[in-house]
């Protein structure tokens, strides 16, 4: 009805459709917010993740010491609350007299960036390939699916360790080692969804109206899949962060002196008997972050994509 009132003026039509989309989005967002508020744990998870992100961004502003600034006279100081602690170093110092809290905050940068990049690139690759493979099928789909099966034959960490052995340690190599296998997760998810969506009526309708295949994939089907990808992406981020920490722990990931939680735990291990805080506290930071990401991810899954609930 309203459409006819607007008439043939295409700018008005575009504006109108944008306005409708915006209204739907706003309603969805309001509904989403309501749902999220009913899940206090997911909300808490989201807030903690936000706090980590802010701390990572503003690390230089909120820390007093430098992450690499050591003071050998202050080495292995216990946390401030313990006997012999110094209030200038709230969580104590490491074997080089560097402030542990500062290094933990800077370590969040590494974990978050690696997690975001590894998942982000994997989503980009997996979504594109999965969408086209699932929509067009054919030999390309066959090839990609067999390659995905092949990558699945490797346990994740073994594969990542193998690739790091080949590439050598470092930030870019680490991202490559993780994404080289991680994209398969999203490829399989999107391809499967694509196969299911393709047969539905709205796709038929779009074809009848004469929409191009590309338009059908991009503006008809993908918006229906994107929620599952978002949920999976959130949940996989926790895994990627643990993988990064594991590789850095083995000395194959982020190299010192860049503060990464995994390598901090590894170097703190040598002082385990005399200075428990150097190896345990970075792990606490890691645990809280991954826990919060998972809480948020499971909350998102319950709201956006209840079907995924069976693991």
């Amino acid at each position, binding site marked *: 009805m309203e459409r006819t009132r607007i008439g043939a003026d295409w700018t008005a039509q575009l504006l109108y459709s944008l306005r409708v989309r915006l209204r739907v989005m706003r309603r969805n967002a309001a509904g989403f917010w309501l749902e999220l508020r009913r899940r206090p744990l997911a909300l808490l998870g989201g807030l903690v993740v936000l706090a980590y992100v802010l701390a990572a961004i503003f690390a230089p502003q909120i820390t007093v010491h430098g992450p690499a600034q050591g003071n050998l006279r202050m080495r292995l100081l216990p946390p401030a609350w313990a006997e012999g602690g110094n209030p200038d170093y709230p969580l104590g110092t490491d074997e080089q007299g560097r402030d542990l809290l500062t290094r933990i905050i800077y370590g969040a940068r590494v974990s978050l960036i690696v997690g975001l990049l590894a998942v982000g690139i994997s989503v980009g690759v997996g979504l594109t390939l999965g969408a086209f493979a699932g929509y067009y099928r054919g030999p390309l789909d066959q090839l990609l699916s067999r390659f995905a099966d092949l990558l699945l034959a490797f346990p994740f*960490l*073994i594969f990542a*360790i*193998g690739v790091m*052995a080949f590439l050598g340690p470092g930030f870019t190599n680490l991202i490559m080692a993780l994404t080289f296998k991680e994209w398969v997760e999203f490829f399989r998810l999107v391809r499967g969804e694509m196969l299911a969506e393709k047969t539905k009526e709205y796709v038929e309708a779009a074809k009848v109206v004469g929409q191009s295949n590309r338009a059908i994939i991009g503006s008809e089907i993908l918006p229906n899949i994107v929620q599952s990808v978002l949920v999976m992406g959130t949940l996989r981020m926790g895994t990627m962060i643990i993988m990064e920490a*594991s590789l850095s722990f*083995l000395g194959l990931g982020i190299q010192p002196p860049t503060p990464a939680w995994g390598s901090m735990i590894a170097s703190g291990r040598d002082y*385990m008997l005399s200075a428990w805080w150097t190896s345990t506290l970075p792990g606490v930071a890691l645990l809280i972050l991954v826990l919060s990401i998972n809480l948020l991810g499971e909350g998102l899954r319950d709201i956006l994509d209840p079907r995924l609930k069976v*693991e």
Partner: protein
Amino acid sequence: MRGLKILERILITIPIMLGVAIVVFLFMRLSPGDPVDIMMGQGGTVSAGEMEQLRKEFNLDKPLHTQLWLFLRDAVRGDFGYSYTQKRPVGELVGDRLPATIELAAGAMLFALLVAVPIGIISAVRQHSMLDQASMAGAFVGISMPAFWLGIILILLFSVRLDLLPVQGRLSYDVQLDQVTGFFVLDSLLAGNWRALGDSIKHLVLPSISLGAAPAAIIARVLRSSMVEALRQDYVTLGRAKGQVEFLVVMKHALRNALIPTVTVIGLQVGVLLGGNMIVETVFGWPGLGRLVVRAIFVRDFPLVQGAVMVYAFTFAMANLVVDVLYTYLNPKITL
């Protein structure tokens, strides 16, 4: 019929393993650094002629596709070449370390199942109870925790603070044990060596918990949700209506059906055990395959890394094969 299906499933594994071998080979061979240079790295001065000789000996002078063919041919025979740094056949080195790794993985899986199965069942039967909520919260922490950190916490608590369990290795220095199979628990049982048995089990406890915690958490969560699902089904109601004891209803009707999704997840956990194994062995100084590989990576001992990664991938493939076969027994409706 079933035998045929299983055979077919085994045949599918072959091209996958072949692909794995090719991927591993290409990665290792294309990596920077000349193997002979690496081999001679610590060896002092070697003449160019001798280098050429070595290159020939390891077939490194042949074109890549010939090298690949030779690698595959030897790999099928279980021959993964010579370790650059230890000057011993890779097969032998891996074989020496394998029992320790399997023992640890078995310990971890045992721990995971012992914890997860009762918790999964009870949590489902007493859904929303305190116990259910507490164990699911615990499981949630379990999946969010890296194994190496848990290992360190356990060492600090049980070895340093409470002095109950050993920190490192498989056996105390003052305990004697003749090695037959390489599985210390088995060896000491066979020899009737109770002191070694107790000691090796003590050494096994903390690494097994560190490695098994994440699988335990995942298995408990899946088992619980499939049990909840199964308990809602008609056949359970029927069982109860027949007046069957609740215990039997749960164990016979519900559990058997809930096991189907759980078994798949257990199979996937084998992959987690294999990967986590490198980490946990490093934390606990466990003389297994994982530590061998990690060290081999740092000295760029490619044949050793190659062989070990192949063994890991092969084990993982076998585990998934076993799971698929188990599947048909649990659920006759499913054909492979």
